[in-house]
């Protein structure tokens, strides 16, 4: 008896808690890692999505319909991302999904959006997400491969040909490490040391010590995001390693400077242009959108803009543009709409999608090279 009653009570709770009836709204799903080791990324992304969905609705919605954002926080766990993507598809019945924030999570859920035929715009960096092209998967963020190329260019210019890698072991670090190793030879750069560290490691002294004792090393590159690079940077300064330290676009956030503290000064990194929107030259096509976003974000949330929020902005407006263009909220139509985006002025650059290119980002506008000076960004000329 108890079992029966218990189970029926639970079933009832279960049923009633999911009674979501929303007619006439366009449901857009979001999977972000707003907390946990990738909160650097997810937090500004979530804030941006919430803010601009509200803004769009206040301005009358899309084609007369209001948007409804259903966002879940994964804490950067691929397992949770899988659970949530199923929930978004089966339970919440969204028409498009934005996210996840990280590569690992994105790779984990691709299969499910492909099967359910729901368009996904990922906010993660790795090139593997859109190469090879998958019908329902897009991304508009500069790839790690582009970041690598930009860094290698700089290394070549400074005649630093022996590079040491110390990469995070998560999806982003792994993918960028692979891409950098891949493109290095074409710039005449040799990888002379290749260390890794775990997602939640709190001390990288040992790995850095090995690099320090390697006499060939002329520069060090640290692909990774989250707390890892901050600790690497701190340990790097503690060990007084003299060679220049390069970081990836995974750290293009004020949070990085905050955690790494003074150690961040002198770090050179690649970043999406929005971070330094106000410092861009007026001829840069991105400047107008990026600056407007940056000002609005900083006014609303009273914190300095992080590049990652821009990914969310672009993804959201790309979906909106697709819905407007197709005059439909059918997921398949939205997909077609995204694939046909031309000359889309995003924060991260100008986008021209095509059936063979689900990135569509223009390389020239996609990445800028920055130095950290006195706790602030400065563009490397």
């Amino acid at each position, binding site marked *: 008896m108890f*079992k*029966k009653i218990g189970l029926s009570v639970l079933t009832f*709770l279960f049923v009633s808690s999911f009674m979501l009836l929303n007619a006439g709204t366009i449901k857009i799903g979001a999977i972000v890692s707003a907390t946990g080791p990738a909160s650097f990324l997810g937090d500004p992304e979530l804030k941006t999505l919430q803010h601009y969905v509200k803004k769009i609705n206040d301005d009358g919605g899309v084609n007369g319909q209001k948007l409804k954002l259903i966002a879940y926080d994964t804490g950067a766990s*691929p*397992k949770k991302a899988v659970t949530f993507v199923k929930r978004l598809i*089966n339970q919440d019945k969204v028409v498009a999904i934005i996210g996840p924030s990280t590569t690992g999570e994105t790779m*984990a859920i691709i299969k499910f959006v492909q099967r359910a035929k729901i368009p996904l715009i990922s906010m993660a960096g790795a090139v593997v997400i859109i190469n090879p092209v998958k019908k329902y998967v897009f991304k508009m963020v500069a790839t790690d491969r582009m970041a690598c190329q930009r860094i290698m260019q700089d290394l070549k210019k400074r005649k630093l040909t022996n590079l040491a890698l110390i990469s995070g072991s*998560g*999806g982003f670090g792994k993918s960028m490490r692979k891409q950098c190793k891949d493109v290095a030879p074409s710039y005449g750069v040799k990888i002379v040391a290749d260390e890794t560290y775990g997602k939640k490691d709190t001390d990288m002294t040992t790995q850095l010590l090995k690099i320090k004792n390697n006499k060939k090393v002329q520069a060090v590159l640290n692909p990774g995001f989250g707390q890892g690079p901050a600790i690497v940077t701190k340990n790097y300064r503690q060990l007084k390693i003299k060679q220049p330290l390069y970081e990836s676009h995974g750290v293009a956030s004020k949070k990085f400077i905050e955690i790494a503290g003074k150690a961040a000064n002198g770090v050179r990194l690649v970043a999406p242009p929005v971070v330094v929107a106000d410092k861009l030259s007026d001829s840069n096509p991105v400047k107008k959108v990026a600056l407007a976003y940056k000002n609005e974000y900083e006014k609303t949330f009273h914190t300095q803009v992080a590049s990652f929020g821009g990914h969310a902005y672009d993804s959201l407006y790309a979906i909106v543009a697709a819905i407007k263009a197709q005059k439909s909220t059918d997921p398949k139509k939205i997909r077609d709409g995204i694939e046909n985006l031309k000359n889309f002025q995003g924060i991260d650059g100008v986008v021209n999608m095509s059936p063979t290119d689900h990135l569509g980002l223009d390389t020239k506008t996609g990445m800028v090279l920055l130095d950290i000076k006195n706790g602030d960004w400065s563009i490397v000329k």
Partner: protein
Amino acid sequence: MFKRYNINRDILTLSAILIIVPFFFQNDFYYEIAIVSLLNSLICIGLNMLMGYAGQVSLGHGAFAGLGGYIAVILSSNYGITPIFGIFIAVVTMSIFAFIVSKPILRLKGHYLAMATLGVGIIISIVLNVEDELTGGSDGMSVDSFTVFGYEFSSSLQWYVLCAILLVFTIWMFTNLINSPFGRVLRSIEGSEKAANSVGINVSHYKSIVFVLSVVIATIAGSLYAFFSGFISPSEASFSHSIELVVMVVLGGLGRIYGAVIGAVILTILPQLLTSFEDYQTLIYGAIIIFVMIFMPKGIASVYEDVRGRLFASNK
């Protein structure tokens, strides 16, 4: 015939519930939760046999389930072995592994045993994280669909039926086992190892058998979960998953056959209900565990048994 095969009221009730519940399901997501509940119940039944009946703690069963799942998945996804055969090899491998591990580990007692199983579990989870060529590392790997002799399990209903049948069957076998001389031996080990030893029972042998048995069930459930969800990541094998399983068993009621099921169902559904409390999720989860351990240390099932005991006392 019912009597001969020991098909008792509890089994029939459970079957009835399992048949009725799907009528309340509104969409695939409900099935999803139900299937995960069933698979967790399965692991917990094995774990309960180890902890509740033989009295041996294991803080590593999540890892065993995860590793078992990985073996089955890697075999089928990377080496093209049919899933069912993959699971079979995983079961055999994990049995041997569990048997070897059980010998030194089950000599330990109390929190030393807890710590040793925890250690083995964490080592497994680290290996799964590090060997990314094979396992996809911390980002996990995606899993091919589950086919049995050409029959593909694709809809949620198919999975639900499979898991429900498996659960009922396992519970039936488990009930028989516990009520047999074999089960008495297990319970005597929890009661007093010395007593068991003094009447000629090779305690370490039986401990190993139960350990292997519980790992086998965990492997089957873990593999099925991986095939069902189409994805596996080392978080299946993580410390927190192991803890979750132990909490399910203890919450439901150690040494109570249906306790494991009740605990598993509640703790699978609870986090889904708690997503609306997002920030407070972990807090509430912890508070519930503390509450149960303080006020119902013998688990939820014990409350039910007390009530039933009073009601049916005269019948017996």
